[in-house]
């Protein structure tokens, strides 16, 4: 069956335009709801298939899923260069309200890579309110500043292999590009125009300081089944656990063996991640 047979595409009216959405209705009795937040740039394209597989599996397990293309991304209106972090958080609020209205229950947030960091930041805004979402995190970006550096570094790599030859020494170094952004200029990275406002917001984000108070299932993809979660993920999870030890809720950091599907040039699947996510939800529903 085609994806269209499972999901209902539509445009959601939003500030300054409309957002492309794909709604996956839950099969049978509804057990929960999640808004899916995609990663950024090339990672968004590489992960469409995994997002679709995940959304369909969750829907089959009784969880309604709304996939939203954030402003300036995918098939939504607006240019990427006009996108702002706060605007994306507003999009997420809007999507959660739509899904909660549709299914009559609170909507959690399921985010991948930068989408997971957006989910965390959105949840932090609502910390300890009745509206704080349950979170599903897939391979979250943990440090916005490091992520920004990695984006900026891509331009230098392009130069190193000669695509931008003749641009000269340090003009394309991450530090030089960062200085440009801080001075208020937009910077083009791999076909995306990065606005200085968006870069500044990314630069300030630190997952360790965004400890969620609601239930969170966090999944890290590792290369082999016997590998532990990366030290960086363990440190952030421990910092969260520390902050919320009185709440009596655990941070569930899961590891799943599979390929780094968000990073590979070919469309890659990691079915074990989808299975583990559904299993974690079913288990917590029975707990």
């Amino acid at each position, binding site marked *: 069956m085609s994806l269209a047979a499972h999901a209902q595409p539509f445009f959601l009216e939003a500030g300054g335009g409309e957002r492309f959405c794909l709604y996956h209705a839950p099969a049978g009795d509804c057990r929960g709801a999640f808004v899916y937040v995609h990663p950024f740039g090339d990672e968004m394209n590489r992960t469409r298939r995994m997002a679709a597989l995940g959304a369909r599996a969750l829907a089959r397990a009784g969880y309604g899923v709304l996939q939203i293309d954030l402003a300036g991304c995918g098939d939504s209106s607006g240019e990427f260069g006009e996108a702002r972090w706060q605007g994306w958080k507003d999009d997420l609020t809007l999507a959660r309200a739509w899904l909660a209205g549709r299914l009559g229950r609170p909507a959690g947030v399921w985010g991948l890579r930068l989408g997971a960091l957006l989910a965390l930041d959105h949840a932090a805004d609502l910390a300890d309110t009745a509206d704080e979402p349950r979170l599903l995190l897939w391979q979250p970006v*943990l*440090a916005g*500043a*490091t992520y920004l*550096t*990695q984006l900026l*570094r*891509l331009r*230098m*790599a392009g130069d*190193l*292999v000669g695509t931008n030859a003749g641009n000269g020494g340090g003009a394309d*170094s*991450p*530090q030089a590009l960062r200085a440009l952004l801080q001075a208020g200029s937009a910077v083009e990275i791999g076909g995306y125009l990065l606005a200085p406002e968006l870069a500044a917001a990314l630069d300030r984000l630190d997952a360790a300081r965004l400890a969620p108070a609601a239930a969170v299932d966090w999944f890290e993809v590792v*290369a082999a089944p016997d*590998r532990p979660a*990366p*030290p*960086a993920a363990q*440190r*952030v999870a421990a910092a969260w656990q520390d902050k919320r030890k009185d709440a009596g809720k655990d941070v569930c950091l899961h590891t799943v063996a599979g390929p*780094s599907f968000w*990073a590979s040039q070919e469309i890659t699947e990691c079915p074990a991640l989808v299975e583990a996510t559904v299993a974690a939800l079913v288990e917590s529903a029975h707990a």
Partner: protein
Amino acid sequence: MYLEQIITLLKDVLSLGDEVVLNADTPLLGALPELDSMAVVNLIGALEDQFGIAIDDDEIGAATFESVGSLAAFVEKKLAQ
């Protein structure tokens, strides 16, 4: 101390098969054909994500990537900061 983790990361990022044996003395830059300029960028990013460190481009050079051991020593120094 971080040698085993660095070796695992190198094998994963560069997609090296099991037949490639790495140890502290294994030369990297200029010796390992898989380590081209894009792979160096990917490797730096993977080190940052794995260990939760931020690497400035002026703190790394050819000497950092001379061998597996020099790379491990660099990571150890960053983590101690």
